[in-house]
């Protein structure tokens, strides 16, 4: 029972205090797994800790909106903050240009009770200088541990250029390569730097692949090639200390091929934009104005265990706090066309009256 809800068990506190002695950015989870952060504190909580090392994370894009970039940016920035090697592949001509848009860690922590960030910044500086004189070390310890595993990223402040100089960042363009073998080889050499040996983990690699199977790439009509690329990527990940986040537009694949992709994923997420002026939805959901999109959790990685992790909800709203920080919140009322329910005949009953939407199944 305890394993199904690790967040409420007393073990979680031990993990957070224990990992401070280890490499920053890594956290031990249950069943011998090690987590790295997704770069979004709320997403880490939803996924019961973060992305486990060795897992393949697939993000289903909204074909008409760039919301998957939010997840990718935070994932990559978090890796840079922790000094983890990073491989980024995208179908653009100049993938390195994307690095200029990565958000830098914000100065204020995830604390919703405080609303003035500049004041908090001042307060923090004082706290830093005189930390040892304050008896109230509980809060600072809390902030410290938070800083180590997962940061809040300020989407309006990009990283400075010089920040990348000492970092291990590789960029690959998958636009012109006629087959995926180049990308496969790059991934293989990248992952060989972070091999898995059962002892201590010194570093974790991050692979971010944006819009694999995008139609402008030559390989987009080679379905089986892409599937076998994913399969070998997964097998390489299993034997290394790395996480790969791959985004793809499912609507551009055949439905059966898209399902195959989804089965390959250890963690499966999807993002959707919400229509701008949808009055019905605005009536149905609280805080509709602040939402920029919806995130669905379809699958949470089950590594070394057969027990599925059941998240508290499957649909979350993506909001920008103070227009800077990405936060995920449970919907207060379920949307009518929740994609998780669309495959069952019973949804007809729920969508018939909006009152039943608040019922918890």
């Amino acid at each position: 029972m305890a394993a199904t809800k690790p967040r409420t068990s007393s073990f979680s506190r031990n993990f957070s205090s224990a990992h401070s002695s280890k490499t920053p950015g890594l956290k031990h989870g249950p069943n011998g797994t090690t987590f790295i952060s997704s770069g979004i504190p709320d997403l880490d909580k939803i996924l019961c800790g973060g992305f486990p090392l060795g897992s393949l994370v697939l993000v289903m894009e909204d074909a008409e909106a760039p919301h998957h970039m939010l997840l990718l940016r935070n994932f990559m920035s978090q890796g840079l903050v922790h000094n983890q090697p990073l491989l980024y592949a995208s179908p653009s001509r100049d993938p390195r240009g994307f690095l200029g848009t990565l958000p830098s860690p914000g100065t204020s922590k995830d604390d919703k009770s405080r609303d003035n960030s500049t004041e908090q910044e001042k307060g923090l500086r004082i706290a830093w200088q005189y930390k040892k004189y304050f008896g109230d070390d509980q809060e600072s310890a809390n902030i410290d541990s938070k800083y180590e595993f997962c940061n809040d990223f300020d989407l309006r402040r990009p990283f400075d250029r010089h920040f990348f100089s000492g970092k291990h960042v590789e960029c690959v363009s998958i636009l012109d390569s006629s087959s995926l073998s180049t990308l496969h080889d790059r991934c293989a050499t990248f992952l060989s730097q972070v091999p898995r040996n059962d002892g201590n983990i010194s570093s974790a690699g991050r692979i971010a692949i944006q819009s694999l199977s995008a139609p402008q790439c030559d390989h987009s009509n080679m379905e089986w090639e892409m599937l076998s690329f994913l399969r070998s990527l997964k097998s390489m990940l299993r034997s290394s200390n790395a996480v790969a986040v791959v985004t793809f537009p499912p609507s551009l694949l055949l439905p059966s091929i898209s399902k195959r992709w989804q089965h390959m994923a250890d963690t499966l997420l999807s993002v959707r934009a919400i229509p701008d002026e949808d009055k019905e939805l605005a009536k149905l959901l609280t805080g509709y104005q602040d939402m920029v999109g919806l995130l669905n959790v379809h699958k949470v990685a089950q590594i070394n265990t057969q027990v599925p992790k059941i998240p508290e909800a499957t649909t979350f709203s993506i909001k920008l706090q103070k227009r800077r920080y990405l936060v995920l919140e449970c919907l207060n009322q379920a949307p009518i066309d929740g994609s998780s329910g669309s495959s069952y005949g019973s949804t007809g009953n729920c969508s018939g009256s909006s009152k039943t939407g608040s019922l918890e199944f």
Partner: protein
Amino acid sequence: MDRLTSNLLDEAIGFDDPTKPSPLIGRLLLVEDCVETSGAFVLHHLLKRALSSRHASNAVIFIAFSQSFVHYDRVLRKLGCNLAAQRDSGRFVFFDMLTLGCSDRSGKETDEGVLVGLYCKIQRAVNALIQENKRHVTIVIDDIPLLEVAANGSINHVLDFLHYCHTLTSEIGFSIIALNHEDVYMDIERPLILQMEYLADVLIKVGPLATGIAKDVHGQLTVLNKPVEGLQDKLRNRVHNFHFYIKENGTEFFYSGSRA
């Protein structure tokens, strides 16, 4: 203590009578799942069942496409079955197709060659097990869609491979357990799953609850047990329907609404 107390799933398959030989001898059991609910726990359950039997003549050949040995070892250890020890004692043969199949991806093997090579390996393993006087061998194939990926999408080769395995095993009274994904085969690729379902003697479908995600019920299960020829009493009660809750050390099966 005999830890093999039977549950609803075992009864539905026909394991409930310990005096009779295993009901899966010479038969093909197919597990079908979908993205929302993984059916891997059924494989773990049956794998444990096959390995923890007291008959020394039981053995398992496991062809793993979706997970590594480390994963299965950890999962089965929590179920009370040590795969590494079983492997050393020769009762458990593990083909790691996840890493193995990929390493020779760039090699000279053709699409067909991968499956032919795999079949030869299975045949060799089977022959070796027969020589060790293992009379009941179970072949477990984890993830048929990934088998197709290994064969580069040629359904015919996959079907040939499965037919070969089926023939090999039904001749000598072995059983096959295979995991398939139902939702992958929706339109044009229907033939493979239909042929598989036709071949299967026991079909287990795993799916999410129709009412949505719940914390205390992980999904529902339909077991279709085709009657063995000549046994008229088995004609009744062929379809069983129940819910399940997966734990680290086993799975609870219960009828809808009957859980305490």
